[in-house]
């Protein structure tokens, strides 16, 4: 079915069209949410919130961009706002633990590439990490990222370049692997 017809049917209150729209996009939305959140429960929450907002605001979708791009804009907004709240909550918990005298023993960093890479990506500033995940991992174009994050295409490119530079620095120990 044509996407525009589908949208019109959803706007008219057709339940089966809602489900069809959800089925067409849920996997990509969920995968993006998971890649950014790194947690199954959060990814589910963010995906659900994305579709709840999308159905509520579908009347405002003007069709200037693809529906998927519009949905990914909502997804990134929901995920980034949600992660900020989670971060604040964890900081508060950490403060409480510190006040209780609980020493949260820092995990020894493992020399494993996969672990080091994850730590390095997690340590990127939020903007760099989002662009890196969307472009290098999920395959979004800079144009799509620009629309989703509300930034210029050039900003997306610059942030990706800085993200890679930071990762190159963090992963210098593994230089042999890529030079080889």
């Amino acid at each position, binding site marked *: 079915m044509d996407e525009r017809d589908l949208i019109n049917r959803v706007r008219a209150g057709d339940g089966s069209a809602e*489900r069809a729209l*959800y*089925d067409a996009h*849920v*996997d990509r939305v*969920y*995968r993006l949410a*998971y*890649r*950014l*959140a*790194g947690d*199954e429960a959060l*990814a*589910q*929450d963010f*995906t*659900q919130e994305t*579709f*709840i907002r999308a*159905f*509520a605001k579908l009347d405002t979708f003007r069709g200037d961009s693809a529906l998927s791009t519009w949905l990914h804009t909502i997804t990134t907004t929901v995920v980034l706002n949600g992660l900020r*709240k989670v971060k604040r909550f964890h900081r508060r918990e950490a403060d409480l633990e510190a006040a209780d005298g609980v020493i949260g023993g820092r995990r020894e960093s493992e020399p494993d*590439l*996969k672990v080091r*890479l*994850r730590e390095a*990506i997690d340590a990127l500033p939020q903007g760099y990490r989002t662009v*890196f*995940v969307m472009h*290098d*991992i999920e395959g979004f174009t800079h144009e799509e990222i620009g629309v989703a994050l509300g930034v210029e295409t050039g900003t997306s490119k610059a942030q990706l370049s800085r993200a*890679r530079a930071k*990762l*190159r620095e963090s*992963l210098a120990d593994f230089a042999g*692997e*890529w*030079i080889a």
Partner: protein
Amino acid sequence: MMMDNDENKFDQWLQDAAKTYNVPPRLAPREEMWAQIQAERALGARRVVVRRSWVRWGLAAAAVLLVGIGIGRWTVLQRSNDGTPVASGDTTGSALVYQLAATQYLSRTETFLTGFRADLRAGRGEAFPGQARDLLATTRLLLDSPAADDQRMRALLEDLELVLVQISQMEAGRDRRNADLITQDMDQRNVLPKLRSAIPAGPVPVRTQGAT
């Protein structure tokens, strides 16, 4: 040139290696999420209706309190002008208004907290933070009113204020751990039994316009 070549190699290597970053452990749980979306949308529609009735009730309770404060001030002024000493524990119209407002408030809060516990057990609780904020405003009005002159009532209002502050700061019903801590706190302070014993037997005496 060599530098660019290394950078390209790194970028390529990085793109391959990064595919292992936050890989979802399973496919999107479509049915589970769809059921949740439908439930939350239905709840959202209900919440709008519920919210309207709570706003109306909050306004009505606040109006009753403000009338009480007005009558109280007028009475004090009249007595001062007459040279009559102002006694505490008076049984004038203003005291009655405060009493009625307090009774209505306690009854509402009891219903709210009972519903809060029940809905938490059922995994619901989306509307609670907003309703708690409405009740909190009335709690604070009552704390500043002669209704709080009674020490037992003041202690109860302070307990309720604490509980309502915590509920109002929950994150849209998703804060399960905090919710459990709030109910534990309520149990430790015997909030609900104290609240129930403070409500006079029989129906709530006044139903103001807009109360549901």
